[in-house]
C-alpha cells in the first residue's frame, strides 16, 4: 500500500538526532511491548509480513504521531482483535473474560533462544531466476493497495541487478493470506540521479532488495 510508512524520499522531517548513550529501552513498557510481539510472533498466530502490514494499516496520523513502540503496541492490539484471540471487551476491562482459542505453540522461558535466532525465508525455487547480475531492469510502476516491499521512490526507475540473493518467501503474497509463493530476490542498484533527478549527488547510489515480480527488463 502507498502509505506514510513508505518514508524514503520525503522532505520536512528535520535532522537526524542521535541520542548519546541511548538505553536499549527508554521505559520498561517498551521492553514488554517488544517481548509481547516476539512471543506472539513465535506462536504462529500470524506471520512477520502480516505484522508489518498491520503497522502500515494504522491511520497515517497515528503512525506519524506515535513512537516506535507505541506503534508496536497498537499493532499488537489490532492483530489480537483481528485473529479473535482477545476481545474488545477484554481490552476495555484490562483482564481476560473468557478462554481464547488455542494457539499452535507458545513460548516458554526455556525456549527464549528460539526467538533470538532468525529463521530462514529461503525456499526451493519454482523456476530459474529470470535475471542475472549486470542485467538492466526497471522497477515496475505498481501500486498495490495491500502490503508490498517495493518502495515508491524506486517505482518506474531503472537499475542494475547487482546480486541474486536466492528464492525467498514473497511478503506481498503472505500478507494477503495467499501463501508463501517464493520468488527470486535481487539486489538492484540505482544511481542517485536516476532516483532523484539531475540535482542529486552524482556519487550516491541506492540499492533495494527487489522480488522478481517487482522487476521488468529495461
Amino acid at each position, binding site marked *: 500500500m502507498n502509505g506514510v510508512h513508505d518514508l*524514503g524520499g520525503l522532505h520536512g522531517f528535520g535532522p537526524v538526532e542521535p541520542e548519546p548513550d541511548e538505553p536499549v529501552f527508554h521505559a520498561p513498557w517498551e521492553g*514488554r511491548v517488544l*517481548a509481547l510481539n516476539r512471543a506472539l510472533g513465535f506462536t504462529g498466530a500470524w506471520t512477520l509480513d502480516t505484522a508489518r502490514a498491520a503497522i502500515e494499516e494504522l491511520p497515517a496520523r497515528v503512525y506519524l504521531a506515535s513512537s516506535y513502540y507505541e506503534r508496536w503496541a497498537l499493532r499488537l492490539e489490532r492483530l489480537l482483535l483481528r485473529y479473535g484471540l482477545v476481545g474488545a471487551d477484554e481490552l476495555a476491562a484490562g483482564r481476560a473474560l473468557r478462554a481464547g482459542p488455542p494457539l499452535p505453540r507458545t513460548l516458554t522461558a526455556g525456549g527464549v533462544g528460539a526467538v533470538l535466532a532468525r529463521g530462514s525465508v529461503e525456499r526451493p525455487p519454482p523456476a530459474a531466476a529470470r535475471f542475472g547480475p549486470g542485467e538492466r531492469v526497471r522497477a515496475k510502476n505498481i501500486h498495490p493497495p495491500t502490503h508490498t516491499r517495493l518502495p515508491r521512490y524506486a517505482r518506474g526507475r531503472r537499475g542494475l541487478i547487482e546480486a541474486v540473493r536466492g528464492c525467498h518467501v514473497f511478503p506481498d503474497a503472505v500478507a494477503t493470506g495467499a501463501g508463501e509463493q517464493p520468488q527470486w530476490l535481487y539486489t538492484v542498484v540505482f544511481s542517485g540521479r536516476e532516483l532523484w533527478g539531475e540535482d542529486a549527488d552524482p556519487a550516491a547510489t541506492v540499492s533495494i532488495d527487489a522480488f522478481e515480480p517487482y522487476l521488468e527488463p529495461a
Partner: protein
Amino acid sequence: MPQRVRALEAILAQKGYVDPAALDGIVAAHEHEVGPQIGARVVARAWTDPPFRRALLADATAAVDALGVARGACPHLIAVENTARRHNLVVCTLCSCYPWDLLGLPPEWYKSAPYRSRAVLDPRGVLADFGLALPAEREVRVWDSTAEVRYLVLPLRPAGTAGWDEAALAALVTRDSMIGTGLARRPPDGAR
C-alpha cells in the same frame, strides 16, 4: 501507555498465550546479551584475519556462525566493506529492518522519520548530521533493507593500529560504524 501494555500482558498471560517469565527472558537478552559488541568482534576479526575477512565477504552467515559469537546469525546476512572509494550506509525506509542479532536493537534515530526519509535522498546530508564529512568523490552506497537480507558494514580499520590485537581493535568498532553513520574510532594519541 504503560498501563495499557500492563493490561495487555495480563490478558495474554491469563489466557495462557504468553509466559511472563519468557517475556522477562526476551527483555533480559536484549538488555544484556545482544548488542553491538557482537558485531564489533566480527569486524575486529575481519581486520586481523584475512581468510576470515574473505569468508565474511563471501558468506557472512556462515562466517559469523563459525566464529560462534552470536546465538545464530541472520541466515541472509551480507557484509559490505567500506573502502577508500566507497562508503556504505544501511537503512530501512519501510520499517526498521536491522541486523539485530549482531548489533542489538536499533537506536531510535534508525527507526525514525528523519533518517528513513533522508538516507536514500540525501545520504551525505545524513552523514553530516552525524558529523561525518566524506570526500565528494567517494561513492556513498545506501542499502535499503527492503527484504529479509540484513547488511553489516565492515568499516575501514583506523590508521595507527598496526599490531593491535583483536580485543583492542574491537573496542574501536562503534555501532554507528557498522551501520555506516560513523567511522571506527581512531586510537587515542597515547595508544599509538
